């Protein structure tokens, strides 16, 4: 997991918790001083083709690292540090 993070995406169906994850992730990125834009994708087919079936999804380098729940910001930060 030493690869550099090149992209961060939040995928969701537009539901409230999806937006919450998006906001938290943006905040986490800011607090970690990462220079990456967080992308929000609401194409459900994209979620499915990642092999995941829950929304929202947090993906780093197009690989899902978290699905189906909104954790606290500490957890998001730890996922982004990999």
């Amino acid at each position, binding site marked *: 997991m030493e690869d550099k993070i090149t992209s961060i995406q939040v995928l969701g*169906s537009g539901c409230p918790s999806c937006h919450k994850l998006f906001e938290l992730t943006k905040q986490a990125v800011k607090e970690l001083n990462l220079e990456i834009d967080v992308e929000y994708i609401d194409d459900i087919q994209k979620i*499915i083709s990642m*092999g995941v*079936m829950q929304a929202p999804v947090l993906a780093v380098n197009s690989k*899902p690292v978290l699905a*189906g*729940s909104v954790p*606290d910001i500490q957890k998001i930060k730890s996922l982004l540090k990999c």
Partner: protein
Amino acid sequence: MDIFYPVKLFADWLTLSLFAITPKTLLADAVNFFIYDTIKIFILLSVIIFIVSVIRSFLPPEKIRFILSHKNKYTGNIIASLLGIITPFCSCSAIPLFLGFVQAGVPLGVTFSFLVASPMINEVALVLLLGLFGWKIALIYILSGLIIAIFSGIIIGKLKVENLLESFVYQNTINGSVDLPKMSRKERIIYAKKYTLDILKKVWPYVLIGIGVGAFIHGYVPADFLAKYAGSDKWYAVPLAVLIGIPLYSNAAGIIPLVGALTEKGVAMGTTLAFMMSVTALSLPEFMILKKVMKTKLILIFAGIVGAGIMFTGILFNLILK
């Protein structure tokens, strides 16, 4: 021994000593009922949702899909219904779940068994049934719900309705599954704690209002008041209960305590069961979401089959539980 005996003592003390309400009055009765039920329900909700969440953390939908895509038809329907019990149904995940199942080759009928069981047999409804009606009614509810889910799925599978799905559904197929990072034991506990708190935060006003109105009915409405409108001899009671239940999904947590009180006042048990099943299993918001992936005709078939199953259950238990 009743493990809620201390709660009972506490409710008595609060009502009679602290609030100094005259014992054996309607007010004392209603207040006592409200305090006792509220505390009991919140204890049960916290404990049971926590346990279910821990179990769930071992069985995410991605794993369930793997299990289901390797089962033949009938076993698939049974296992899908059982797994539906522990999976929460939320509007965020309904479509990803549906597409994820179907595109991975899980048969449509099996997918529907899951779609019926998942909202119908949910932990909040179970806790309320257990707390307010006792374990026998809770068990009847689970078993009937499972049977309805299994058979609805089998019937939909036999109908060959694949052509009623939106065309893009079968344009993509996926195989294999993703490996989400494994959770440690500590993370499971954190997840379960958070999930339990989230649910409690979401349902507490409804539960309080439901139990509050229920307590009022319990104390002030004469027994058998409703028997002449909704007793077991009224043929229209069950279908009417099912129809009324369809738009009420978001308030399931408040409706069950309310219905519990109505049952005391003469609404037949089968009618009550049918009403609660309709509230949880047939929901307007869910139908709207499903419209993204299937044609209205299929939603009507789906609602029709499940609705018929619920009515049958209601009428059956009105005959048995006299």
